[in-house]
């Protein structure tokens, strides 16, 4: 037996010591918490067992991420879920784990989700579904993918879409609003343009219509003034007279609408008694009312009702209301016209009530709109443009008042009520003689020069003047007018503005520049009567501005106002 050498023994010793060292240090490392993983052999395979922490970063991600995450076994059971999923479902985590995931899906989407999860064992799939949360649901995006390992295990991610959906809806709503606003704006712009064009058209139309109306009216007046007429002729004459006045009124209305809506109409307010407005209106309407066999009741307050108002305009309003009452009430109906004083509110009230076809609740607010007719069918018995109520309301409002309609419904009659402020207590003065009152011809024979390129207009006016006993000359243009003025020395010149060549303005300016004609009364005759037109006339040197066709009363008033005759 050979004994090992010292060297060999020493080497062996060293080896042993090293191995011991290692063993000790391994144990020390383990117990001293210096290692956190071990290699373990399972069968033929090596595995690393981790004590803690290697999956911490991943675990942290799963725990903290915004989505709910779950691992589902092949039968759809949740065997792992992160806290977020429990939060989304508003259920304790312990109850989520072990539940069937599809039980948390809204019934309508359940089958779809189950199909999805079945597919997810083979490939990545996604869908949207409503998920139950307490008593409500929320929209969610589901993404499922196969997990490596046991068959049929699926990794599921659940993203809450409510915020996104809300934002989408909000964005859509804003977009819709923008589109609607843009549409409304362009519609409004289109309306404004159409409105403007309508006003322009109406102004031109009215202007054109005035030209033939002058001669017509003058002619008819002349016919009436030339002596008593045969009965048959008289009826026809009266009819013609009425119709021409209607025409004039219509044309005035046409123009007024434009003027009123542009705020251009000028009221000639005076202190008057509101009862006079009612009376005046009645005079113009008695025929319309009796023609339809209506019973008329007039109830005017016993005490005066002082107001500051334009008699002609307010009478127009009441006429409009009375004519409507007559028109929209079946034959043999009842109409009430009342004027009273409401001391409590400090207003004068004029009321027109009828027991006719009434107004539908839906129409009540619309009756005052332009061109709205309650009845645009063939049963209309009288002419009208449907501008009456719009105009009436505007005119009333210009007086600081209101015009309201009320009705109990179809066939239950209607009532229109005008309210305007009472004037401070004072005796009302009699109405100004500036309006259309026919009067006897003045005795003084005046020299009148009529300038108009329209032969009928000039000659009809001339004939009228002559009938009234005046001396009349006619001229067709500016040059002739100036020559005639020099030779004839008229006291009154009625000058059409729209002359060929030299305009009426120029003629007036020239006349004024000449000292000889400084005292002559020069009146403009024009189809335009706006503030600007009148101002322009004044600037050119006219003493006055008449709108065609000139009313007899106006002409008479002018003639009456001429100073005493001079040679």
């Amino acid at each position, binding site marked *: 037996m050979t004994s090992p050498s010292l060297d060999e023994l020493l080497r062996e010793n060293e080896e042993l010591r090293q191995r011991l060292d290692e063993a000790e240090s391994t144990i020390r490392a383990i117990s001293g918490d210096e*290692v*956190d*993983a071990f290699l373990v052999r399972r069968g033929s395979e*090596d595995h690393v067992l981790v004590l*803690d*922490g*290697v*999956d911490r*970063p991943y675990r942290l991600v799963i725990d903290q991420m915004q989505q709910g995450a779950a691992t589902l076994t092949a039968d759809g059971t949740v065997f792992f879920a992160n806290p977020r999923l429990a939060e989304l479902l508003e259920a304790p985590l312990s109850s989520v784990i072990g539940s069937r995931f599809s039980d948390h899906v809204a019934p309508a989407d359940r089958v779809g989700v189950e199909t999805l999860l079945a597919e997810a064992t083979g490939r990545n799939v996604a869908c949207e579904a409503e998920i139950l949360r307490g008593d409500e649901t929320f929209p969610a995006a589901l993404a499922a993918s196969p997990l490596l390992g046991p068959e049929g295990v699926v990794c599921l991610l659940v993203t809450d879409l409510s915020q996104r959906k809300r934002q989408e809806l909000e964005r859509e709503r804003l977009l819709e609003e923008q589109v609607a606003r843009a549409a409304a704006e362009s519609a409004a712009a289109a309306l404004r343009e159409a409105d403007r064009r309508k006003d322009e058209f109406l102004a031109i139309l009215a202007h054109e219509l005035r030209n033939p109306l002058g001669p017509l009216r003058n002619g008819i007046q002349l016919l009436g003034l030339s002596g008593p007429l045969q009965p048959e002729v008289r009826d026809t004459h009266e009819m013609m007279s009425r119709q021409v006045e209607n025409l004039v009124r219509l044309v005035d209305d046409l123009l007024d609408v434009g003027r009123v809506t542009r705020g251009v109409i000028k009221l000639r307010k005076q202190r008057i008694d509101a009862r006079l407005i009612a009376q005046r209106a009645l005079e113009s309407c008695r025929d319309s009312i009796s023609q339809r066999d209506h019973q008329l009741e007039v109830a005017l307050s016993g005490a005066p009702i002082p107001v500051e108002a334009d008699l002609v305009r307010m009478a127009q309003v009441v006429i409009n209301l009375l004519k409507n009452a007559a028109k929209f009430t079946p034959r043999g109906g009842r109409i009430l016209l009342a004027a009273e004083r409401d001391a409590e509110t400090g207003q004068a009230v004029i009321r027109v009530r009828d027991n006719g076809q009434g107004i539908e609740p839906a129409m009540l607010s619309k009756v005052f709109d332009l061109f709205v007719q309650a009845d645009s069918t063939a049963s209309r018995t009288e002419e009208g443009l449907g501008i009456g109520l719009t105009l009436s309301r505007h005119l009333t409002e210009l007086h600081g008042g209101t015009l309201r309609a009320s009705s109990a419904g179809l066939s239950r009659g209607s009532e229109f009520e005008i309210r305007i402020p009472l004037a401070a207590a004072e005796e009302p003065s009699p109405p100004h003689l500036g309006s259309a009152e026919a009067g006897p011809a003045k005795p003084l024979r005046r020299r009148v020069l009529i300038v108009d390129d329209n032969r009928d207009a000039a000659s009809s006016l001339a004939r009228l003047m002559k009938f009234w006993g005046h001396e009349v000359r006619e001229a067709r243009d500016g040059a002739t007018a100036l020559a005639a003025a020099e030779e004839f020395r008229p006291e009154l010149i009625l000058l059409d503005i729209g002359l060929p060549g030299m305009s009426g303005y120029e003629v007036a300016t020239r006349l004024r520049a000449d000292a000889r004609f400084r005292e002559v009364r020069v009146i403009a005759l024009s189809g335009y009567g706006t503030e600007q037109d009148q101002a322009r006339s004044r600037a050119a040197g006219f003493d006055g501005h008449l709108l065609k066709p000139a009313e007899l009363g106006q002409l008479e008033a002018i003639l009456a106002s001429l100073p005493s005759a001079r040679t």
Partner: protein
Amino acid sequence: MRTVLEENPSDLSPDPAAVWELRLYVAGQTPKSITAFSNLKRLCEEHLAGRYKIEVIDLLVNPKLARDDQILAIPTLVRKLPDPIRRIIGDLSDTERTLVGLQLRPRRG
């Protein structure tokens, strides 16, 4: 009087010119794996600047590689070169023990 041990050639510092090959076995990103690695780097820079090579082996990725050096606990540092192979288990926070284990410092009696 010097002990036999002190004279043991294996206690003597190895050839200073040789390039050290060090293998660090880790398990993914466990805290101790990370600690071991940073300690090792620091140590090498201080004592072996310019003449070391560190190979990191992640046993989570491939557990089989543990067989090469008979690894049991993780992390473990193995000095492949210079000879002989030395093994140090743990996160290398005890610098003294690590240096001694690597034979960069003599063992205190």
